[in-house]
């Protein structure tokens, strides 16, 4: 099972097992990771599951789709490594993925 590490804005790190095919957002919600709200339930219709992808993982997670970019406009402190975690599907390749949650969700 791939592992994902979530680091919150204060630096606390939590590593959990993720199911292949689930999203990084769903994995967070299932594991009670703080800092991810996912108000819309994963429809790419809000920006409350915003995360920063660790630089080392950006190539593997890829770039946001145009629709995701549109939603990121609503995020807080959006950076070049910002993604909506509901749009990142867990694969075996992402074993060890590290994401940081922003100071606040939109």
């Amino acid at each position: 099972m791939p592992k994902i590490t979530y680091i919150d804005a204060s630096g606390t790190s939590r590593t959990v097992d993720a199911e292949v095919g689930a999203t990084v957002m769903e994995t967070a919600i299932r594991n009670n990771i703080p800092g991810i709200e996912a108000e819309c339930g994963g429809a790419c219709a809000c920006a409350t599951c915003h995360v920063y992808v660790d630089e080392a993982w950006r190539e593997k997670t890829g770039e946001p789709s145009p629709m995701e970019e549109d939603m990121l406009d609503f995020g807080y402190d959006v950076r070049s490594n910002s993604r909506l975690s509901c749009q990142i599907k867990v694969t075996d390749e992402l074993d060890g993925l590290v994401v940081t949650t922003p100071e606040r969700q939109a």
Partner: protein
Amino acid sequence: MSDPIKTDALIVGAGPVGLFAVFELGLLDVRAHLVDILDKTGGQCSELYPEKPIYDIPGFPIVTAQGLVDGLTKQSAPFDPKIHLNEMVETIERIGDPLFRVTTTGGKTFEAKVIVIAAGGGSFQPKRPPIPGIEAYEAKSVHYAVRRMEDFRGKRVLIAGGGDSALDWTLNLAPIASHLTLLHRRSEFRAAPDSVNKMMALVGEGKIDFVMGQATSVEGADGRIAKVIVKRNDGSNFEIACDAVLPFFGLTMKLGPIANWGLRLNEELIPVDTEAFETNEKGIFAIGDINTYPGKLKLILSGFHEAALMARKAAHYVFPNKRQVFQYTTSSTSLQKKLGVA
């Protein structure tokens, strides 16, 4: 006050569950008016994800959210619901047993025998941008809608956002404001290309400024804004002096006035019984995502079930002396006549 609009049922929210409630009530001869704050029916389905497929509507292996709304609209059409869009139910007052007087933000008054709250996550309201302390400026300097363009005459206006609202108001206010800046995170917009071209033309003519970045904080005094601190995408900061800020960051859902209707609430949800999905107030029902009860699942199909059971009890209040007969649409000519197919 104008004469109240009299109706059997007033449905608060015209999303999928509110629309299906029209159908279930209609089969029992209960006529309904619907009120919704959005400019269209369909609730979250139409506002948030019209093109997304839904896979768990019984009998439809796949249907888009808008497709479902269109189907529900067609299904409720025989009962000719009266739909009041762009307004929000503001107050509910009990004047009978049960009978309610209801007012809306659109200035309408209704007299309804029963009320069905099918408000989903609450009412859609403009999203407050995540800028610390912005609340303090909302009365005087920060506006989420433009009510009177004249209010901005001669002012230094900052518009934030990259959608149609941001672009439309940039174009409309450019000739009125003394100085106008459009602030957006990137060079792509989620707006009509024609508006974007017009905006860029204004920038080219030196009539407005377009700035790429994100507002991170505001400064001012006594509720009057003086400047907005903007972070550029390279991480550096700069300031934009302004008198008015218009953030257009989409919509979010808020419980809104529902909290003031005297209903028992449980974490922004309305507890109901599971026989009729009635609240602690006789004659006020709550169905769909807005309600809660043991085992509740926030699924559209649960809302449909709730609508059917609600309708039985609502019909009992509307027609207290009428015996209810349980009928199937497949075999009942009486139901088929109501649907206009027999």
